[in-house]
């Protein structure tokens, strides 16, 4: 699809974080397009740069963290945009929800006040209209007796309810894009199930696009339309969700799927990825996954392989993508 149709266009995104032991190049040249109405999963393990990427989209990093590249929304580059102008976009047209609603919510304001604050700031709605809209929003996210719960403080809500409340606040501005950073990781599985279905329903009803950051491949399979897999600060594979699970085209994605227990192999050894991710203070030579890869050859050790398009709207940065076996196939 052409970039003109995308809601959010990310090009050459780089994030550098200074640390006492040298600069951490946490996000290294990330490119993607977010399409209207889609749920795009940003998947990876800890330290892969998925949350750092998400925060960079909205300019949430503060100095001395350095963000470069382009995040184009509505014809403007959000990277380097003055804070005052950025506020018209952040929390208005692009909203964000976090893993820990308790730290993201203001503990001394009622849920109702926090929703109305957003309505006033970004929609110019106040007074009775705001109250009515706030009730409607809490109801929309599935909080029972919404009108009375508006007067509650965050601590009076359970974990699942807080996440619902945070979603209601994020939706108050009627955003076109919702950025969700591990929104269900801290929740129990039956509550996670409810919140994920809720996100999908709201996406449908409100026509939003969603970027969902998660480490849980089950959550990806159940929620996302398209997936971008991150490793060591780079996108290594993008694909439609069905294609990705059926036939991964990057050795890392394949390794991830294979390391999960398979229902048919009770108590048999799992197939882990050996070793651990690289330290991004030292730029890797060639493919960053090479030291842990079962398919690596000298061909992987030149310049770091770029993300190249394949047929069927997918892309991979794996030199050996054509030789990868299926997920279930046994390695010889």
């Amino acid at each position, binding site marked *: 699809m052409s970039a003109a149709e995308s809601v959010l266009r990310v090009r050459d995104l780089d994030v550098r974080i200074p640390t006492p032991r040298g600069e951490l190049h946490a996000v290294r040249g990330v490119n993607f397009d977010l399409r209207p109405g889609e749920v795009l999963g940003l998947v990876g*393990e*800890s330290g892969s740069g998925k949350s750092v990427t998400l925060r960079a989209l909205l300019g949430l990093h503060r100095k001395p963290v350095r963000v470069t590249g382009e995040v184009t929304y509505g014809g403007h580059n959000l990277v380097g945009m003055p804070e005052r102008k950025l506020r018209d976009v952040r929390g208005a047209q692009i909203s964000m929800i976090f893993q820990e609603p308790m730290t993201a919510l203001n503990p001394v304001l009622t849920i109702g006040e926090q929703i109305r604050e957003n309505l006033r700031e970004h929609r110019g709605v106040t007074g009775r209209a705001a109250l009515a809209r706030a009730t409607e929003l809490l109801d929309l996210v599935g909080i029972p007796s919404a009108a009375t719960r508006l007067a509650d403080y965050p601590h009076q809500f*359970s974990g*699942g*309810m807080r996440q619902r409340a945070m979603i209601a606040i994020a939706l108050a501005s009627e955003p076109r894009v919702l950025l969700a950073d591990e929104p269900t990781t801290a929740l*129990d*599985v*039956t*509550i*996670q*199930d*409810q919140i*994920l*279905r809720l996100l*999908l329903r709201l996406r449908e009803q409100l026509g939003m696009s969603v970027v969902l950051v998660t*480490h*849980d*491949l*089950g*959550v990806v*399979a*159940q929620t996302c339309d398209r997936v971008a897999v991150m490793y060591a600060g780079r996108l290594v594979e993008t694909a439609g*969700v*069905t294609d990705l*699970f059926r036939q991964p085209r990057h050795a890392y994605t394949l*390794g*991830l799927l294979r*390391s*999960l*227990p*398979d*229902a048919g*192999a*009770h*108590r048999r*050894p*799992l*197939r*882990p*990825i*050996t070793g*651990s991710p690289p330290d991004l203070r030292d730029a890797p030579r060639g493919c960053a996954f090479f030291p842990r890869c079962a398919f690596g050859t000298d061909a992987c050790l030149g310049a770091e392989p770029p993300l190249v398009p394949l047929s069927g709207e997918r892309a991979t940065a794996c030199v050996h993508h054509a030789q990868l076996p299926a997920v279930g196939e046994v390695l010889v």
Partner: protein
Amino acid sequence: MTAVEGDALLDVRGLTKTFPAPQGLVDRWRGKPRKVVRALTDVDLTVRRGETLGIVGESGCGKSTLARCLVRLYPADRGSVRYAGEDVLSLGGDELRRYHRRVQMIFQDPFSSLNPRMTVGQVLREVLTVHRLRPREGMDARVTELLSLVGLPAEAAGRLPHEFSGGQRQRIGIARALALEPECIVADELVSALDVSVQAQVVNLLLELQEKLGLTVLFVAHDLRLVRHLSHRVAVMYLGRVVEVAPTNVLFERPAHPYTRALLAAAPHLDPAHRVDAPALSGELPSPLDVPSGCPFRTRCPHAFDRCVTERPELLDVGAGQQVACHLFDPAASAGGR
């Protein structure tokens, strides 16, 4: 490997544990009675020698409290725990120390249970010293042996905990538990904090060690996929009660309790073609401060009827080694139906 039928290593009967809930100053001054968290209520459970028993459930279900009561980290209010016939809850002094050698717990976050200023070698030597174990081959050789058992190099002994990755720290936690040559390991969310690729490494280690050392393992976790992979039998807990116990294949293929069914349906399936629009279960988990009367699950259960409000269902045998605490499965009553 299958566990020997009927050979109970740990036998838990009517185990009950409550905690006083935190109370505000005003309520205390007014003399309001303190609320009580019902963490465990009349838990019956048998762990067989050599098996892996998975314990699953959501937060507040009491799975961690159960684990901690079994290793005597928490004193139980009521009930009994027998280990190879011996009454665990009344042990003291040297007897308790001996029990702790036989039953070891491994925690989710080994980093918080390791002294940051002690090298790994010192940590392991301390355990051996405290339990007055003087290995024949000498301390250093034993430390090296333990490290190699969990796949760490001998040099690891000279390093501090912060120098290791999450997966390696979990290996250190396992090595420390194994130092005492236990018969039984209680693993509370052993790999929950680890990334999947590393998780698989630790799972394999656990499988290998169990095979090699004949360990009995209590695997407490919320990850159903892992529990299914590792366990011979699985116990499902809800609000302080065991609601279902069954051999793993029976539990996952023919779950009986409505809660078990909902829990399995809610776990995100790895196949994108396998999507459902409606959530498996509506409603919130009740607070353990305010456990519903009768069946704890009745407030969210689609099949609840009058009897569920008034009478608590007992854990009953329904055949094939499956036990269920649900009135729907009580042959003595025909009311309700499915």
